[in-house]
């Protein structure tokens, strides 16, 4: 994440200010084509993944999912559908009962740290444990064993990207909810992951912070999976949607198509985003 990189994204996000339109499906396919040379392995290839906690019913059953590099996938479904467990498996925090997970062509071994994947947890407080914002963002790069100069430049770039430069010396515990969220994201981005998982990133944000996050995500070059109950949010940042219910993937397709399918959504406890609903 060099400075030019940061700058280019900044300008991208400036260009999007004020735009509240849907992601343009055609444009995003072009973008995908540009990002993924035919020979590259998919960012994520999950096959027949199952998981159960000991003594409980299965949480995930034969889940298969392929995500190409550059895709932005919204993950929706009721609580308890297995979304969080799925993420924990992708990160290697949990061991699958059966199935395989390939991340950029290499299998995920449970318990092994893979810097290619980053996860932004539901509660930013779970992710902020240093005495200042700077130290918090530097935590990951330092763990990677980078030289201090490289650490500093990564921290600076991640803070610039999230717009948190001015808060570098503040203790994260004193920030507002929206600021904490952006610092947590900066901490993950400083690891320069290729695939980022966002778990309910919009919660507790007010509309300004939410809009800011949407613009940030629209301009983000990383592949990402984003789980939220806020389908309007998904509609603005993801081109593809995967619906989880009862531990299985029940639908997978283009966001505007899936999210307009009232019958499908209702069957899984979801509602069409207001924008795609028939007017009253």
């Amino acid at each position: 994440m060099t400075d030019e990189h940061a700058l280019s994204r900044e300008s991208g996000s400036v260009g999007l200010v004020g735009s509240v339109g849907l992601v343009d499906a055609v444009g995003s396919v072009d973008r995908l084509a540009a990002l993924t040379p035919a020979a590259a392995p998919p960012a994520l290839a999950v096959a027949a993944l199952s998981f159960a906690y000991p003594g409980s019913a299965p949480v995930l059953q034969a889940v298969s999912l392929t995500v190409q590099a550059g895709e932005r996938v919204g993950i929706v479904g009721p609580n308890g559908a297995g979304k969080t467990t799925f993420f924990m498996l992708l990160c290697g925090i949990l061991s699958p009962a059966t199935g395989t997970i390939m991340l950029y062509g290499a299998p995920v071994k449970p318990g092994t740290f893979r810097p290619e994947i980053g996860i932004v947890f539901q509660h930013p407080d779970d992710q902020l444990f240093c005495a200042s914002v700077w130290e918090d963002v530097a935590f990951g790069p330092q763990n990677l064993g980078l030289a201090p100069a490289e650490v500093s430049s990564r921290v600076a770039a991640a803070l610039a990207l999230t717009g948190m430069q001015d808060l570098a010396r503040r203790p994260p515990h004193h920030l507002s909810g929206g600021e904490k969220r952006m610092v947590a994201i900066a901490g993950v981005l400083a690891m320069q992951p290729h695939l980022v998982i966002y778990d309910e990133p919009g919660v507790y944000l007010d509309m300004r912070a939410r809009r800011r996050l949407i613009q940030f995500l629209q301009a983000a070059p990383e592949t990402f999976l984003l789980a939220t109950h806020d389908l309007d949010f998904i509609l603005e940042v993801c081109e593809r949607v995967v619906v989880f219910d009862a531990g299985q993937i029940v639908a997978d397709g283009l966001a505007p198509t899936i999210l307009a399918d009232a019958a499908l959504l209702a069957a899984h406890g979801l509602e069409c985003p207001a924008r795609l609903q028939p007017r009253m």
Partner: protein
Amino acid sequence: MGQHGMCRRYWCQRQSPMNLDIETYAYGHSALHRWEPRCKLVGLLALMVAFAFVRSPWLLPVMLVVALAIYRLARLPLLFLLARLRLPGLFVLFLVMSAPFLIGHTVVVAVGPLALRQEGLMFVGVFSTRFVAILTAGVVLFSTAPLAASINAACSLGVPVVLTEMTLLTYRYLHELGRDLHTMQRAMGQRGFRASRLRVRTLSHLAALTGSLLVRSFERSERVYQAMRLRGYGVRQPGASNLPVGWRDALALVVALVIAAGLVAVDLRLRA
């Protein structure tokens, strides 16, 4: 809570003791579950003190039989007890393994420099039997009723309200904070942190983790206090409401006290 035991080979893998829920069998229907909590508390505590008192080897099997009979009456699964006996850990194991070689004069068997001694063996026998008996009674006492019922019983028997209120609040938020810590450790692991070598950097990150946990719980306590105040906390001194003590409860209490007194009396006689 199930997921606590699951994160393998991560540096946080062992910090997951919350999966042994003491309240799993709190709502059973055995005689022990039905016993009025105050009587149960006094009766079983008296037995535990008596168990701690016993020193004579002849009474050890009696004590064990009493403890296991109570456990049987409580109709708790045997695995539940075995899992709990496994928990106390290294110190007990160390004592049991080393005492026979360290305590006493009378050598029973000697292998090279190691000599197994009679007094030490005796000590280990007394200690481990008492340990098992007391632990079993304790498991029955606190696993056959919801913790709140036992704590309320203690309150109406004169334990200060400050202590009982603090106990219940601590117990309640233990689960939340345990989950917070667990997630924070996962988040640290996801950013490449491995606590494998003792260095100042590792130590200071673990200190920051501890500090963050303390700050979070402090901030939460202010919100909890406000929520409590807004539902009338402090308006009225809480009083424990109690079920009436039936004749069966009283009879069971008398039986427990008689057994306890009997153990102590016989032990004193045998010692003399």
